[in-house]
């Protein structure tokens, strides 16, 4: 029989997501990989906000969660644009060097 989920269960799950994302930030070597790991961390934070919101019977946590998700999308757009620029510059440099190596 599984234990009934409590407030601690939600907080524990959000902590696990936060830690997995934090480990990913250090393990990944590319900017996009790091960004996706940050998204995992943001998922954990969102869950903690929503659970706290339910526990304290307020609506602030849900609003904060939505703002955090919007900020993460902004982060995603900027990192993808900068990575695309970086990739284009590398591609031009390789074509300029002629041998396909940097």
């Amino acid at each position: 029989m599984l234990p009934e989920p409590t407030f601690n269960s939600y907080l524990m799950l959000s902590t696990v997501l936060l830690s997995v994302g934090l480990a990913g930030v250090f393990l990944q070597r590319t900017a996009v990989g790091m960004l996706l790991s940050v998204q995992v961390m943001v998922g954990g934070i969102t869950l903690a906000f929503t659970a706290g919101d339910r526990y304290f019977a307020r609506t602030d946590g849900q609003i904060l969660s939505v703002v955090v998700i919007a900020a993460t999308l902004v982060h995603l757009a900027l990192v993808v644009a900068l990575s695309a620029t970086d990739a284009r510059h590398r591609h031009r440099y390789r074509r300029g060097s002629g041998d396909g190596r940097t």
Partner: protein
Amino acid sequence: MNSLPAVVTGREAARFEVAGGRPAQYRSVHRVGGIVARALRWCGDVMHTWTFWGLAAAAIASSVLVVGLRHAVPSARALLALSVALAGLSMLLAAPGVAVVLLIAPAAGATILLRPVPPLDGPDVGRVPGTSIGRRLGLLVAVVLVVELGWAFRQTHGVRLPAQSSDLFTSAVNVAGAVWTDHLATLAAAALLLVVSVAGVAAVRREER
């Protein structure tokens, strides 16, 4: 013996009549009703518990996949699964607004990622410099954080969440009302951030051309 007890009134009196006006059968009607109510409550609790643990397992597995996969596209797919699991957990917490945003966010992210840009999946695209000692130290900090918080949560007893409102729509209306009254400054700041980021991305793209 067949007369209605003086303290029984209203609906209970009707049950007394349905039971043939006999106190023994009247008690059995009550007993059966209580058993059915308890069984339904137990089924609801079991469904809630199984749903929570299933979604939690899915969220942890997909987060490990996001971090473990080396290429961006499979990681983004795992992130989509994580968003779906988190949306389900938000629904369990009676937060449909957050669930909707969590389901829309991957679609917006996919729209950004699927634009015709140079491949972002290469091994050296957007590579970030860093020493292996720093990475290992950061990984160690993450593991220590998990162990420390796990120990802290084991020291405290689980706190039951309060009963949720029967109407999910009420929660969404409350959130919308709070956004337009108490959190208008937060909404304005988020909107400003979005506008500035759109301008920044447009500037970066123009510089490429």
